[in-house]
């Protein structure tokens, strides 16, 4: 086997990593927009608490986040029976890996979107209102387009975070090749075995390519938006 031939296990890990990251971003993005809106625009009792809660995965050791996910979503967790009734299982499945990645990426996405939202001039929204736009239309046609760069930045940061997520993932869904083994956990697994330098090197190159590609894509998108 030459250095360049990627094994099926490694390919699976790559495919799974991409899937997990994309699903995680797709899941968190709408929720993050709503959360950013609430945090940036609404003033209510418990605002600080909610803000802290959103940021918790950022400051908690990922292992703790993973464990808490098990406690809530595990088969014997708080929501276990509910999930079972729905015919869903999250612990030790790829869906669970996506959930773990989404939870870890969420605070970063919220932060990016909130910054963009706070930069939107409320006077423009007010003006749109006097032109007959309802609050929903104001959000869709004024606020959203104006915060789009922040939205893209949030998505890219979230994607990168989800791609590299390791601690919470391995705690919540373990490291099952073909099911929950992402690039990060595959590298970890291979590193445990001596004489696997070639495999490690290949996957590190894959990781590099993936991350670099994501950065490039975000750069292109950002440029396109500036040109508009």
């Amino acid at each position, binding site marked *: 086997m030459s250095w360049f031939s990627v094994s099926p296990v490694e390919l699976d890990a790559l495919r799974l990593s991409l899937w997990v990251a994309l699903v995680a971003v797709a899941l968190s993005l709408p929720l993050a927009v709503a959360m950013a809106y609430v945090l940036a625009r609404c003033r209510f009792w418990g605002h600080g608490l909610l803000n802290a809660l959103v940021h918790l995965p950022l400051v908690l050791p990922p292992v703790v986040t993973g464990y808490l996910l098990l406690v809530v979503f595990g088969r014997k967790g708080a929501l276990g029976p509910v999930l079972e009734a729905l015919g869903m299982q999250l612990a030790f499945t790829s869906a669970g890996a996506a959930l773990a990645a989404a939870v870890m990426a969420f605070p970063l996405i919220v932060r990016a979107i909130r910054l963009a939202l706070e930069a939107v001039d409320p006077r423009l929204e007010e003006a*749109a209102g*006097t032109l*007959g736009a309802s609050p929903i239309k104001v959000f869709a*046609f004024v606020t959203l387009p104006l915060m789009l760069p922040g939205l893209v930045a949030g998505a890219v940061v979230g994607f990168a975070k989800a791609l590299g997520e390791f601690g919470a993932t391995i705690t919540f869904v373990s490291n099952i090749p073909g099911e929950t083994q992402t690039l990060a956990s595959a590298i970890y697994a291979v590193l445990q075995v001596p004489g696997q330098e070639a495999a490690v090197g290949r996957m590190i190159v894959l990781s590099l390519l993936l991350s670099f590609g994501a950065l490039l894509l975000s750069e292109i998108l950002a440029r396109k938006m500036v040109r508009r």
Partner: protein
Amino acid sequence: MSLDLDIHVRRGRFTLEVQVTAPAGVTVIFGPSGCGKTTLLRAVAGLEPVDHGKIVIDGSDMTEQPAHRRAVGYLFQEPRLLPHLNVLGNLKFAQRMGRQVRGQSFDEVIALLELDPLLGRAPFALSGGEAQRVALGRALLSAPKCLCLDEPLSALDQGLKHRILPYLERLRARTDIPILYVTHDAAEMARLANHIVLMQAGRSVLSGPAEAILSDPAAVPYLGVRAAGTVISGQVMAPDPTTGLAVIGFDGGQLILPELSQTKGHNIRIRIPAQDIVLAREKPRGLSALNVFEGAITQLHSGQGPGVMVQFQTGGTLFLARVTQYSAQKMELAVGQTIFAIVKATAFDPAGIGT
């Protein structure tokens, strides 16, 4: 169409209590800063909550309606164009969001404000005056039943102001919706106002037709000495055949001006500041001034200052002149007296000449 307002707003120590009826045409809200002019406009547009009162626009009670259902077009001090859309996009946005009632046609608004050359431009590539013109067009395209203009020219320099004012005059001539116009610029007020509401400390102290308010001695303390004066509505006549000077006919005589951009037959409004009129008890002779009007004193009003405001009537026009207390005493001015007013042809404030 008209606007009936009864607005009560309390914000800490500030209270706004205003009852105003604004008919079609421009109603200028004039007063010092902090007197509640902008709060009044924002309350009309639904941008400022009202403690109690009634806001009736074109016969329908809008008091409980949110801003986007009020059909009040609002022109802010700054243009507030949407930066992610170009000029055409901003105009189309108003049309799409606007109430589909009685909307002015797109081409009409474009022609009125001469927006055609700007359509493809981005908001940041517009000058202040152009941007404000686009913002006005955008407000018109949202099919408003009432327009609120909140010091729309205050951010522009003097030269730009004079280029925008004709557009506002044309708008006034073409539309039959009430326009509330907030300003603290007396020349702007004299040019645009059909009606005037004078405000002070959250209350309307005096209101009525523009000509009556501007020449009312009682209004002088609120208008300021510089703003008080006569507004003559007249028509441009044929130029004087011997001198070539411009002639304006009005109810009470003829006014001679050195030059005029408007041509014969145009309706015109001219403001003569009270301090630019000289009074005489006898018909003056051998004067260089071209305009001498004979009138009867209708009111004398001495304020706290050294001046006396003298209102007199010539034909159907009320004039206002300001003289010193000393002159008034020496001339023994009294109500009912016949008086001669001398106006220098070069005294006309070009900013005060409008259509």
